[in-house]
């Protein structure tokens, strides 16, 4: 089934974006990237410590994935805009996963700084993918500013608590025209499937794979979960109902016991 996700004019055939944070080695990471089937991975920028050959970029080049630099660790719009510009220069991409956090304990986004940074980066020609609260109003504002997608959290980064407020995600999906990518909180495969069933266009996850006991196996599970959730969404689930509805007809049921058979009440 050809069902690509288009972000900023780029067609992606996998709806899973893999974060690279937390992998115990580059070998483990490479196997997870391949198993996940992803076409986009996130990277962060930090001061160089020259580790010589065998770098993260070798892994991303070998696996042929797009790079999505992030602004992890930024607390202000000014800093995030600077880091985004460094990312554009380093990786020759105008894609940026915009993170402007407010608080170390929750790692929740700072909505005021986030909007400010998003506006500056959109004006500067970036393809902005903001990590946002699961607030439909904020997500709408980000989309209206010209962000290429919105990426609401399911629960706090690295918490593995899944999707705490599915209703907000449903509202966000209804309200914005751009792709909605669930970002943060996925703990296991069913969380990713639920995100897609709710109508998300993609899922971004890192820790659930990189910190799993077997990252390669979990990456495979996530690939299937995202595909399954997407297919289920498109297929159209049955409505929930309170009472049973027999799937087998009563019509033509044979009378095997005759008229004198005891009834259930007897």
């Amino acid at each position, binding site marked *: 089934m050809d069902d690509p996700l288009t972000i900023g004019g780029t067609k992606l055939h996998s709806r899973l974006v893999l974060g690279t944070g937390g992998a115990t080695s580059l070998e483990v990471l490479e196997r997870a990237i391949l198993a996940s089937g992803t076409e986009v991975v996130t990277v962060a920028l930090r001061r160089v410590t020259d580790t010589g050959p065998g770098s993260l970029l070798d892994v991303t080049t070998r696996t042929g994935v797009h790079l999505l630099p992030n602004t992890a660790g930024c607390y202000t719009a000014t800093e995030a805009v600077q880091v985004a510009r460094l*990312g554009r220069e380093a990786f020759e991409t105008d894609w940026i996963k915009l993170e402007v956090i407010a608080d170390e304990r929750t790692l929740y986004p700072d909505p005021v700084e986030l909007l400010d940074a998003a506006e500056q980066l959109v004006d500067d020609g970036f393809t902005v993918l903001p990590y946002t609260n699961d607030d439909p109003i904020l997500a709408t504002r980000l989309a209206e500013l010209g962000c290429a997608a919105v990426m609401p959290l399911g629960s706090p980064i690295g918490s593995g608590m899944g999707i705490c407020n599915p209703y907000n995600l449903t509202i966000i999906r209804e309200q914005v025209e751009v792709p909605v990518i669930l970002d943060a909180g996925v703990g296991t495969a069913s969380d990713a499937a639920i995100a897609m069933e709710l109508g998300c266009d993609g899922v971004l996850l890192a820790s659930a794979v990189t910190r799993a006991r077997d990252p390669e196996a979990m990456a495979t599970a996530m690939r299937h979960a995202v595909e399954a959730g997407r297919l289920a969404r498109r297929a159209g689930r049955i409505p929930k109902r309170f009472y049973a509805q027999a799937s087998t007809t009563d019509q033509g049921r044979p009378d095997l016991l005759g008229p004198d058979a005891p009834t259930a009440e007897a």
Partner: protein
Amino acid sequence: MPIEINGRTRELETPIMLGELIDAEVTDRRGVAVSLNGEVLPRSDWDTTTVDDGARIEVVGAVQGG
């Protein structure tokens, strides 16, 4: 003449090109970005920009991150 590169202070005898300083930090310029006094400097300017007294330089590259 003191400069600061990635938070470390260095003494330079004479002004040098930024590109020389970057090559002292990394063996491969691929995936590297540089800011000079808070401004991101395009790669094409690295070898034509002189590092002046008191310059503050950040040299960054890719690390794993969500």
